């Protein structure tokens, strides 16, 4: 037994030492190094609520961008301008207006396309036919124009291009430049009826152009047709890209409309409301001073709304409006009065950022809502 115990011991020592030496550290897995990605949290208010003024305009109390001529409202526009597509780059006036506009005309001739189908093959077939007819149509254009104008009010898309075009005629060239850029996306999905209506509006300046370039247009048109087809199908906005790339025409400018006289503004005003944290801080100050009589029935259904005017120091100006809703009458009154007391006790309100005082959403008028869970009971 001793010999076998010795043998076993020796064997184990050998195996263990081998394991310790050769099985030291398993190769660690390959991990691709990941660079830390810096993330900034940018409140959207800083973009959507910023009041932009005009740099060269005289100072006034409230900043306002230059009045826009195009008053058609574009949703979610952030940058002031006459454009129909909201672009961030500032408007650039066209440098060479006349000839370049003629060159830029071909895209508009695209309208006579009869079928809005997505397939390119069909479009190719049709394109040559149209081009053949084109010159005739163009020559005849002035005559059909009055005939077709009556139906114009019916189709929806019509009002969009028309005012723009009219302005273009009236205003000196640099201003007329944004017209092509203004041509919006709605074009591709337009029904066939809409096309004749648009023609007269847009082809007025094109009449010459159409005559001048009878053959070249064929290829141009094909490209344009392809573009239109592709823009129908995907989110990719070819028009927007085109307007941004186009250096010949006036491009850029936002689509946010302004009706006010341009002014530079007295101080930097960002119409940003208080953040949730700041509102919470104010609520906390009021809650700290809250003493509500215990044992009120139906407190759980009461909601309180406070509307209070404040001065820059956080003092209450005038009489705050405290409205309680829901719950029994007595409870509501008790909650209202305790809220008012708490509000006066906690004045002046602290921790309010001075830069957010001004503006529509600023805390010059503070509106707070309390629900039962927030009453300091």
């Amino acid at each position, binding site marked *: 037994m001793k010999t076998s115990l010795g043998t076993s011991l020796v064997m184990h020592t050998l195996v263990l030492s081998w394991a310790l030496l050769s099985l030291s*550290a398993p190769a660690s897995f390959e991990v691709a190094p990941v660079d830390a990605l810096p993330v900034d949290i940018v409140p959207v208010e800083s973009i959507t609520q910023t009041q932009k003024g005009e740099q060269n305009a005289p100072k006034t109390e409230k900043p306002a961008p230059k009045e826009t001529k195009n008053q058609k409202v574009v949703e979610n526009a952030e940058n002031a301008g006459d454009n129909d597509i909201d672009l961030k780059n500032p408007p650039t006036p066209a440098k060479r207006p006349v000839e370049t506009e003629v060159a830029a005309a071909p895209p508009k001739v695209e309208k006579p396309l009869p079928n809005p189908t997505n397939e390119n093959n069909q479009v190719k077939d049709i394109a040559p036919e149209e081009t053949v007819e084109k010159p005739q149509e163009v020559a005849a254009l002035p005559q059909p124009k009055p005939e077709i104008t009556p139906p114009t009010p019916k189709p929806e898309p019509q009002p969009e291009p028309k005012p723009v075009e009219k302005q273009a005629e009236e205003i000196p060239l640099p201003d007329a430049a944004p017209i092509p850029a203004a041509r919006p996306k709605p074009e591709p999905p337009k029904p066939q009826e809409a096309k004749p209506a648009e023609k007269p509006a847009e082809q007025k300046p094109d009449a010459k152009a159409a005559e001048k370039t009878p053959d070249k247009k064929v290829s141009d048109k094909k490209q344009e047709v392809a573009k239109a087809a592709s823009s129908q199908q995907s989110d990719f906005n070819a028009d927007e890209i085109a307007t941004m790339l186009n250096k010949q025409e006036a491009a850029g400018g936002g689509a946010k409309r302004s009706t006010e006289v341009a002014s530079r503004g007295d101080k930097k005003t960002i119409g940003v409301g208080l953040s949730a944290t700041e509102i919470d801080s104010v609520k906390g100050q009021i809650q700290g001073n809250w003493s509500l009589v215990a044992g009120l029935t139906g407190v759980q259904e009461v909601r309180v709304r406070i509307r209070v005017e404040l001065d820059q120091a956080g003092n209450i100006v005038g009489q705050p409006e405290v409205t309680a809703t829901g719950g029994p009458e007595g409870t509501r009154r008790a909650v209202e009065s305790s809220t008012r007391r708490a509000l006066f006790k906690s004045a002046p309100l602290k921790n309010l950022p001075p830069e957010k005082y001004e503006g529509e959403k600023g805390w010059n008028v503070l509106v707070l809502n309390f629900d039962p869970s927030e009453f300091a009971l």
Partner: protein
Amino acid sequence: MEHADLAAAASSVSLWSLFMQAGLIVKLVMIGLIGASVWTWAIVIDKYMTFAKAKRQFDQFEQVFWSGQSLEELYRTLAERQNSGLAAIFVAAMREWKKSFERGARSPIGLQMRIDRAMDVTIARESETYEARLPSLATIGSAGPFIGLFGTVVGIMTSFQAIAGSKSTNLAVVAPGIAEALLATAIGLVAAIPAVMAYNKFMGDAGKLSSRMEGFADEFSAILSRQIDEKLQPRQAAQ
């Protein structure tokens, strides 16, 4: 910085550092299991040699026994030696036979019974030596994994406490403690698996040897019984 830390953490997952990082209880468990493994293999080697030797001796003895040699002579050569197995049974039976005849046994049945008893006792003693220490193999085989699991559970508990203290759930923090704890189970299995296999094998071998001894005892008892009859017949006739 972080990469360096991770690399350092990864390199410290070697077996030795795992062992050294472990807590006291886990260390004790691991050492105990390694000891159990050593003991298991000691028994395995011992039993292997014992059984091989026993088998050889059985074969040799049977060869000599059935070779037609005089049993008296065989007894005389074997009596002085330290015998085991079949030889021990033979010697025990022969000794009883001799004693009985030297003092003049009267009843053949009583003699037969005494010889059988003597052989039974020897068989029991021999098979006891063959099966000695096999129960400890069985114990290691069944308890080893549990002991290892105990070490693992304790190790994981302590490492979770440590993780809670470090306030980080980074894998580099979590993994070493768990790997270290799992090492205890690994050692338990390493000790237990050979123990179970060896136990089954050696129990079978011991059963074979004891059945062989019983078979020999029966045969020898038959031979002796014939001898008794032959030797007692003339005496009874003389009386």
